[in-house]
């Protein structure tokens, strides 16, 4: 897909929200490098990715080929403090499923992205849920591309992005792209960007819960959507706590 863009700039649609200054200086070899992963037909596999604030600007690109009737689940927490891009290119064979749970948390000057492209064979399904929590002057982006070629009937593809901006000055961008050439398919996308629910925060305060604790509960509930598909309760709690850990720096 992107090999041709050996050195992307913010003029490229797929990089429009990137940090242009960093891109211009970035190592082209690193930018164009893709990790490859193969999920054999009928298998179920799960991947985790974590970007921590102390890591520098970087682009992580993963290409996954999911065999017929196989399932690949990917969970990512992007808490980078500079420009960090987590990109997934997923090709689903017949009847395969892709599940994405993504969380972006950032403050200061962070510019964090989750970028996906999912190509569906007939009867393939996908579900992507991404939640972003931004404060300071940070930016959280989700760019999600769903491709359903002409012969790929009976596909069911969904993506959902929501962002909470804790402070004025923070922002978020959603760029859903649906390229659908088959006619008997389901494809859904939704995006919403807003502030923390102040009514709920006051309701909690009226019961004695301090603002920081209320914010933590509300943010926890908000990002939990991204991990709903993790069936193992302990693993789900671990992921949530890990993500919430990066909220500590947030001001209110």
């Amino acid at each position: 897909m992107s090999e041709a863009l050996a050195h992307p700039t913010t003029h490229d649609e797929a990089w429009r929200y990137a940090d242009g200054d960093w891109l211009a200086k970035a190592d082209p070899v690193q930018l164009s490098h893709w990790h490859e992963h193969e999920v054999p037909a009928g298998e179920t596999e799960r991947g985790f990715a974590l970007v921590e604030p102390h890591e520098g600007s970087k682009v992580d690109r993963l290409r996954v080929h999911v065999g017929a009737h196989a399932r690949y689940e990917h969970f990512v927490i992007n808490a980078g403090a500079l420009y960090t891009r987590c990109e997934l290119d997923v090709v689903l064979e017949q009847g395969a499923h892709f599940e994405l749970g993504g969380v972006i948390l950032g403050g200061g000057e962070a510019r964090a992205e989750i970028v996906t492209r999912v190509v569906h064979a007939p009867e393939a399904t996908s579900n992507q849920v991404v939640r972003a929590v931004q404060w300071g002057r940070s930016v959280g982006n989700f760019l999600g591309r769903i491709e359903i070629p002409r012969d790929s009937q009976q596909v069911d593809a969904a993506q959902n992005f929501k962002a909470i901006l804790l402070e004025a000055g923070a922002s978020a961008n959603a760029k859903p792209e649906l390229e659908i050439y088959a006619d008997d398919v389901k494809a859904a996308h939704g995006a919403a960007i807003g502030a923390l629910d102040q009514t709920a925060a006051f309701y909690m305060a009226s019961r004695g819960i301090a603002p920081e604790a209320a914010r933590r509960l509300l943010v926890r509930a908000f990002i939990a959507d991204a991990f709903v598909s993790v069936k193992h309760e302990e693993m789900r709690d671990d992921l949530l706590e890990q993500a919430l850990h990066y909220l500590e720096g947030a001001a209110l």
Partner: protein
Amino acid sequence: MLQIENLHATVGGKEILKGLTLTVSAGEVHAIMGPNGAGKSTLSYVLGGRPGYEVTQGSATLDGQDLLALEPHERAAAGLFLGFQYPVEIPGVSFVQFLREAANAQRKQRGEEPLSGGEFLKLAKEKAALLRLDMDMLKRPVNVGFSGGEKKRAEMVQMGILDPSFAVLDETDSGLDIDALRVVGEGINAIMRKPDKAVLLITHYQRLLDYVKPDAVHVLAGGRIVKSGGPELALELEEQGYEAVA
């Protein structure tokens, strides 16, 4: 217990409370009635400290403590409970989690030991039974998917668990059918009818007062108390309307 003196408050720059004065002593239940737009809900939000409700003049104290100087969560720890006319839904946060966090946050502010998980569940079960609310409902997200009546009963379960010294109940009777009204009324009596507690009931109708007998009834109109009396005043209002009486 609760002392409000010459309270003026604005919402969005518009003055809603215009010199409200009210005293409620320990052991008493007072009812506030009044037409729509009189400032009844504003009074409850001002006492609770809701952002956007600005006090421009006057004072409100609870047991001598200046309520208006406290943050909303500190008012709760000081013993104030607000029963919401429209209880708020919080997806993703279970009632049990929410209330245990709230109870322990209040205990912490008062310098008390936190309740263990077992102690909390025992307390929650007892109060849910009192209000005839299925304990399983408290495992669900806060108020999500609850009917109007269930939300109001859940408010009273919260009041039972948090055990405040003073409750302001804003139209707790709205949205209740006859049976639920009785259960809620009996719940209020069981939880709050004590010598060291008091209640301010904000209501449109006489019917809740059949179950929770007030010691005094006040008419709020135009942002101030325009008439006060005994329980008979509520009956008079019900028969003749606010305009004739106040």
